[in-house]
């Protein structure tokens, strides 16, 4: 597992975390290169299907980050998102999907250092957990003939 580099997809909101990650860069803070960021208008825009699709495409971990409660550019997008995550996380857990591989956080545009720390910690945790193949290998494991 020593040479395993986790693939992490981050869904972030345009106004806080994306700007925050920008600040991380302009502050010249180094952080793990395992993360691929996808910028969305708001955390409220993050459909729960995005998470499933990321896992299905082979992501080992997913980060979701946006404005702190009360700071949403659209006033309430993150409040709606928070409710959706509470429910969705519970459902994923019930189905047996590894919820440790999804990291939710609030990172503001001023928290460049926090973003670097979030990514570094999570990348390390996922590295320890190893590759996540439960979902992306599902089709292969089911292509066996019936009764085999």
């Amino acid at each position, binding site marked *: 597992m020593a040479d395993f580099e986790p693939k992490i997809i981050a869904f972030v909101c345009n106004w806080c975390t994306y700007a925050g990650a920008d600040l991380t860069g302009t502050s010249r803070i180094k952080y793990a290169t395992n993360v691929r960021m996808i910028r969305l208008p708001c955390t409220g825009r993050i459909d*729960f*299907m995005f998470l*499933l*699709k990321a896992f*299905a495409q082979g992501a080992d971990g997913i980060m979701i980050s946006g404005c702190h*409660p*009360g700071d949403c550019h659209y006033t*309430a997008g993150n*409040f*709606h998102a*928070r*409710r*959706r*995550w*509470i*429910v*969705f*996380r*519970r*459902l*994923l*857990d*019930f*189905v*047996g*999907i*590894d*919820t440790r591989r999804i*990291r*939710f*956080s*609030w990172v503001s545009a001023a928290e460049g250092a926090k973003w670097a720390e*979030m990514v570094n910690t999570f990348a390390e945790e996922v590295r320890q957990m190893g590759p996540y193949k*439960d*979902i*992306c290998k*599902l*089709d*292969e*494991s*089911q292509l066996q003939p019936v009764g085999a």
Partner: protein
Amino acid sequence: MEALRKKARELLEGKAAAVVIGYGEGSGGKARAVFIRQPDKAATLILDDRCVQNLAVYLVKNEVKSLGKAAVVAQPSTLRTILQLASENQLTDGLVMALAVNNGQVLELTSFHAIEEYLNTAVPPSEAPGKARGLSAEDRAAVAKIEAMPREQRWQFWVNEFSRCMKCYACRAACPMCYCTKCVIESNQPQWIPVAPTGIGNLEWHIVRAMHLAGRCLNCGYCVEACPVGIRLNLLTQMLTDEIGGDFGAEAGFTAKREYALSMFKPEDKEDFIR
């Protein structure tokens, strides 16, 4: 049964209802839904323990709405469905009449308010709001059993369950809350969920279904009944009932004016996983 037939005949003769939706004899000894528009056909109505379908599924169909005022034979779960559909603005008060059968008597419930009152007073205690909310004892035990498994085992359990799914969407057709005219499953740009019944697609379908019904499912159980391979689909939706009913407000189906938990929020909503 006789009381029901008599009531249906009266309603159709007096033009109090344009159509009576009830149960009739189907093929293979099963009960099926019948739509009665002529008074003399009222005698084909039946009512026994084969009649398990949630007939509220037809109330939101345009074909039925265009007939005029509908009277529907309703069990407690059907009544709750009507209230939930009403709170989602899918039904108009006064255009739907519920025929609740209780101890051989047939009660006409002509408004949402009457249904609310009936559910709060006349239904058996096990069905009554406030007394047995949330999951049934049997479902609760099934959910607890799954939750007690280690995560890997839970995953294997559901993968095995979903692997039997052939994507016939009988669960969707049976569910009165699945009334969207364009479902995510039919979307092909982007294609969210593959058409073929593959491992990932089946998982995605069942998760999407559960999420879209989260906090709206009334646990009539007809999806399980309709599933040709007997997947316990309702456990996925019902498992979320406690979560949503408890923390986010009222449980579905006891009032015609309910705000949907996932389209509103409270600033003080509690979670313990966001860093």
